[in-house]
């Protein structure tokens, strides 16, 4: 398979902890292993190490409410790919869509929203505390429909 390399393929997350330690995806750290109790800032970093996006827990929220996804759309037959980074704070936002390939950025101040082409709600991933035994968001009703 030949795949056109895009800037998003070379972008990574990093976490600045409250104790000053920086935890980088490039160093082999996995998203579920982020120590959310110490999360001070969450960043996207490009291939040259420059910070291209940064967010931190909004007032009243903690690192446990952070959600990060690499959201990829693949167009059948053309080989086209659209990759956006989806970052948000559960349950009521804000939520961000960052497309570093075309330089666009969107924010929904009220969080993920059903029907939004980019910022529809994610599904739970390991490391996130917002799902119950049924693997559903604890309070899905708060996501805007």
């Amino acid at each position, binding site marked *: *398979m030949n795949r056109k390399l895009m800037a998003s*393929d070379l972008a990574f997350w990093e976490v600045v902890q409250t104790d000053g330690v920086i935890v980088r995806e490039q160093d082999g750290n*996995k998203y579920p292993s982020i120590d959310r109790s110490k999360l001070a800032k969450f960043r996207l970093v490009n291939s040259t190490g420059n910070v291209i996006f940064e967010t931190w827990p909004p007032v009243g929220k903690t690192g446990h409410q952070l959600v990060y996804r690499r*959201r990829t759309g*693949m167009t*059948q*037959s*053309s080989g086209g790919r659209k*990759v956006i980074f989806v970052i948000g704070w559960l349950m009521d936002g804000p939520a961000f869509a960052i497309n570093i390939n075309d330089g666009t950025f969107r924010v929904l101040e009220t969080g993920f929203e059903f029907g939004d082409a980019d910022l529809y709600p994610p599904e739970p991933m*390991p490391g996130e505390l917002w799902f119950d035994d049924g693997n559903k968001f604890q309070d899905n009703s708060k996501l805007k429909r």
Partner: protein
Amino acid sequence: MAASVIINRLTGAGPTTTDITSATNRMSTSDVVAPGTSDPIPIPGAGTNYSYWVTTRLEVITTAPDNGINNIKWYSDNTGFGTGLTCMGDPATAYTQAAGGGHVQGTTGDVLNSTNYPSLTSASGTDVTTYTSGAPKSVTGSIGASLGEFGDRFVYQLGVGATAGVGTMTARTFTWQFDET
């Protein structure tokens, strides 16, 4: 590093999986992954002729996700197929080989429904143009930090009615979307 994901078309009894991520993918009246312009769907005098259904599925190759992939969606470009043409599709939990039943290759395929394709998740498919970027179809499934095929298949079929025009139709865009960490 982002996972390497491809779109496969499933054909034959096996099935055989073929990467169609960047390859022209046609619907025809044969169970062939790249039929070209062979075995077109004849325009009937009355009623409907069908393509053999097309079964597609995602696969992670070469580079696995660090954590996993979930939240799979499928949608079309919200453009109609034209007079006399309808493309019906929906997810399916398993594979059923496309066939023409009592008909012969080159005439019509079996109609896509839950009788002919038992694991189809709807009775007779849905007009795929109703699945759009703002209202995509959710496809059940996920994969962890590993390689392999994952998620349900998406199966679709073109129906050709008596009012359809002759010729090769304009290409349509189908998109798979998923979340990765």
